[in-house]
């Protein structure tokens, strides 16, 4: 195991610890209606993150099926958390002032610095920045030691099982590639894209991302399908910069998110929350910007990627 891999495994064990603590929080919540299954979900996840790499891969595969079965049966529910009262946060805000932004700024800035100047790799830089920011947070807020656990598990529980969706989607992309799904989509799309037309390939990829996101309401899911099927064969393999294609590909999908009632938590629920007469008023307010941004994506990707 190289040094950087060892550091990465250490950070994955910290993540496993956070999952374990969320599970314990559920286990100790005696009034929790789905206590055992929720605990099992977080414990299984902790298991895959910490010891998964040292076991035959099919065992992790079985664990993934198990967590999917638990969420499918709706057996994973938030447990009781120590949520800070509005008066408490207001009082702290008045004492600390704008200094409370410093730890959060540290997260982003230290990550960039560590990735640029330290030899541990960009992924480990995220872990390093989290550690530095946590120390800074303790120094500034003088919070009790248990705060990291209380507030970390509270947020993790709040994010819930959906937090591992990006990881699962990347794994799905791998299965799609192994099964040859990308090749099939690529064959279909090659009918639209004339040989060597970079601009049309860029347009098809960006519009494809937006359309798939409109249909599914989720840009992440669209990204794994469309990037494997269109982005890689028609752009990256034709010499486009993968960084540009990836970065702008996902946000091109977000242009679709602005237009779809499928993304209910961004477009429909807030309308209900604001008690609008027209429940599509948010989508209508966003439509013009969505189309302008999609056009900007196509132009920008064409200029930057080649």
């Amino acid at each position, binding site marked *: 195991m190289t040094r950087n891999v060892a550091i990465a495994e250490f950070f994955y064990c910290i993540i496993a610890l956070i999952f374990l603590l969320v599970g314990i929080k559920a286990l100790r919540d005696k009034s929790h209606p789905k206590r055992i299954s929720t605990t099992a979900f977080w414990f299984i996840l902790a298991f895959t993150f910490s010891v*998964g790499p040292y076991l035959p*891969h099919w*065992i*992790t*595969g079985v664990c993934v*099926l198990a*967590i*999917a079965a638990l969420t*499918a049966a709706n057996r994973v529910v938030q447990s009781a958390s120590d949520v800070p009262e509005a008066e408490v*946060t207001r009082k*702290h*805000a*008045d004492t600390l*002032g704008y200094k*409370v932004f410093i730890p*959060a700024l540290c*997260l*982003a800035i230290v*990550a960039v610095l560590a990735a640029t100047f330290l030899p541990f790799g960009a*992924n480990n830089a*995220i872990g390093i920045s*989290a550690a530095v920011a*946590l120390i800074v*947070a303790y120094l500034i807020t003088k*919070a009790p030691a248990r705060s*990291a656990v209380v507030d970390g598990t509270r*947020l993790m529980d709040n994010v819930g099982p959906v937090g591992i*969706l*990006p990881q*699962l989607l*990347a794994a*799905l*992309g*791998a299965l799609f590639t192994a*099964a*040859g*799904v990308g090749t*099939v989509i690529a064959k279909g799309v090659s009918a639209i894209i004339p040989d060597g037309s970079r601009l049309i390939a860029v347009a098809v990829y960006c519009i494809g991302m937006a359309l798939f996101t409109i249909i*599914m309401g989720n840009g992440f*899911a669209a990204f794994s399908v469309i*990037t*494997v099927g269109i982005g890689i064969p028609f752009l990256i393999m034709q010499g486009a910069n993968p*960084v540009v294609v*990836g970065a*702008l*590909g*996902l946000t091109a999908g977000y242009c679709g998110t*602005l237009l779809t009632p499928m993304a209910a938590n*961004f*477009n429909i*629920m807030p*309308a209900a*929350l*604001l008690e609008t007469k027209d429940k599509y008023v*948010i989508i209508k*307010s966003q439509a*013009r910007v969505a189309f302008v*941004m999609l056009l900007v*994506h196509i132009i*920008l990707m064409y200029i930057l990627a080649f």
Partner: protein
Amino acid sequence: MELLKLIGVLIVIIGFVLKKDTIATVVIAGVVTGLVAGMPFIDILNTLGKSFISQRTATLFVLTLPVIGICERYGLKDKAVDLIKKTKRATSGRIISLYLAVRALAAAFSLRLGGHPQFVRPLINPMAQAAYIAKHGQADEKTEDTIKGYSAAGENFGNFFAQNCFMGASGTLLIVSTLNEQGYPINALQIAMMSIPIAVIAVLVGIGHNYLLDRHLDQHAKKGGK
């Protein structure tokens, strides 16, 4: 029978459209795709397990949660509210534009401002509505709806297009792991940097959009459409 391989894509679409459990949908789509392609079940489990392990990078954002949780407890959101309340010479469009800029900056620095329930409803929409009333008097129902729509839109623009500027954002990590899995060795710093131009453009386009809202509201009020 090539087309049959697309069944996984179909399952993902149907699962998301019908709002089925997202995790189960994705896992089922993967397993079925493998079966249709004639992979033995144990190979499917191995591929699934292997990529799940190598894609743990996509879940690195979890490491940032304790810090953000502590900052929230110590008044992060309250101070963001204070910042926005300082608006001078407020019009509906300017308030929403300021929020858009603050929201984008916050997203780029991984602060979770909580969006619609915590900012738009209790703060941004009431301020934007009040600015209209101060300038033009009571708003009619349609105007009120329009301002609500633009307030919520400002939150979405700032949030969506700026979040990938943070190395530990789940979208950034998704891009990195998807491309790494396909054999392209890119990293989170590169994706975060490459996400900056579109974030800046989105804020500018949003500000232009809100400027047009102000003009539209002025004209609407002039025509007597209260």
